């Protein structure tokens, strides 16, 4: 990620002040924001105005694929090896549906996991320059990527919203 400057990181004690900082920065035209939070919280997603996650399409495609695979598997194997069991027709849908259901869930689950890893760019080899161990404990971090000339203004905004500490990312 070749950037001229890694920007500033504000550290917050309370979620409310983090949300306030996000709102003020967005009003000031800073869109390249990133939060580091010890816990997931929907309020952060809403404040950052992120679009809905694309992972659900992975889930949908996985489920459809799994369902079709289940149908094809059960029907094709029964037709290739037509052995009458318990006096039922060769193509008996009720028991097939169990396989169809399980493959639907299996493929859906696996593709969801894959889609999540892909979209979150995980596993991450390099630690973010803005990361601080406290952001895994009891503080919220807000990483504002901006030019060096904006540092004063952004730092001011972060502090006025309630940041305990503001420093340059990577330092």
């Amino acid at each position, binding site marked *: 990620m070749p950037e001229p400057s890694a920007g500033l990181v504000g550290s917050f004690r309370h979620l409310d002040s983090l949300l306030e900082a996000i709102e003020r920065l967005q009003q000031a035209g800073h869109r390249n924001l990133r939060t580091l939070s010890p816990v997931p919280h929907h309020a952060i997603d809403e404040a950052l105005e992120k679009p809905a996650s694309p992972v659900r399409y992975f889930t949908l495609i996985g489920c459809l694929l799994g369902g079709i695979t289940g149908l094809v598997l059960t029907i094709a194997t029964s037709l290739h090896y037509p052995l009458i069991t*318990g*006096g*039922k027709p060769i193509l008996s849908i*009720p*028991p097939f*549906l*169990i396989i169809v259901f399980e493959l639907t869930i299996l493929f859906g689950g696996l593709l969801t996991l894959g889609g999540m890893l892909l979209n979150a760019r995980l596993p991450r080899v390099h630690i973010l320059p803005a990361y601080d161990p406290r952001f895994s404990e009891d503080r919220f971090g807000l990483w504002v990527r901006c030019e060096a000339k904006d540092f004063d203004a952004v730092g001011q905004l972060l502090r006025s919203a309630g940041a305990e500490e503001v420093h340059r990312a990577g330092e």
Partner: protein
Amino acid sequence: MQDASEKRGATPLPIPPRLIWAALGLLAVGGAAFLVGLLVDAARAWQIYLVNFLFWGGLAQGGVVFAAVYHVVGARWGPPIRRLAEGMAAFLPVSFVLFFPLYFGLDLFFGRVHELNPQRGGWFDPRFIFVRGGLGLGSMTVLSVLFAYYSLRPEVGLALERGLRPRRWLDGWLAEDWQGDLVERQRGQRGMDVLAAGVLLAYPITYSFMAFDLIMALDPFWYSSLFGGYFFLSTFYLGLAGLAVAAVLTRQCLGVQAITPGHFADLGKLLLGFNLTYVAMVWSQYVVIWYGNLPEETHFVVLRLWERPWAPLSWSVLVATVLIPFLVFLSQRAKQVPWIMLALGVLIAAGLWLERYVLVVPSLWHQEGLPFGWLEAGVTAGFLGAGALSYAFFLQNFAVVPSSGPHSPRS
């Protein structure tokens, strides 16, 4: 401003008198319809009474079981939702009283069974069924009401101590021997810990018995060991649907803003989850009967799914309780819209009413045509009136938004 709207619900709600009168009217209509029905066609009157007894009692019990689950898992996402669920305990004593008239219907329910299948021994003797049903329902009622008692007592006692609440009927019992906020809160917590576990242990047992005794045994030959599990799960699903309806109505009609669209979305997720669990139970039941293909098992399903007049009803049950809610609840937005939640809650509850109808009535009705008319509608309305009255009684006496105690809102 937010404070004012937040406060609404922190004290008992005044229920508009016209709602009370409407509920009383329904109750009167129901009582009259049942009495006239007994004279005109006793068989129809009793079978619809049983359907409604299973439905409304189950709805209330399902709600209380949800509150017990909420307590046991230490949930915190919706204190008002929990309170609304506890409130359903108000109908349980009424439902218990409504169990006793069933004694006079026992011959109608089980007379033919013993003629056709005399081998059914003493276990399914109607008197024994009645006694164990009464014991089970009685203990469930006591456990549920006491669970609600321990939840309400710290609040009522504190409000009385501070003079924030005029002394009402029941308050003498609720706040008897009041020992101060701190002691009472701990005592309430302990009481709820024990009783929630008690409710959760007694519920599957009692409701399995209800399913075997009051539904399965109506058919002379059918038996299924899964049916009990199927029934208490479907009853829990019913409780959740009823809770969604209660939550929307309390917010939209009585103005309790502490119930938020976020709560609706959470209830919607639960409903979606139990929608899937419910259909899994339906399927587990169906596929075993299909595979075994034993006449004493299949006739029950064939009669309901493939023969008129029951078939269209059974398929409507699946559409109303499974298919439509599943599709709608996939959307996160839809779950937050109060009127969609209301419509879906009513749809699921209506579907489950029809489910109980289809489970009970085909075993008892052997004449032409579908037994549904003014009698059935009237008795159902009567039960609705009784349920609404007991719930209104609860809302009029207790706050929807817990003001103190372990489950008051944190924010």
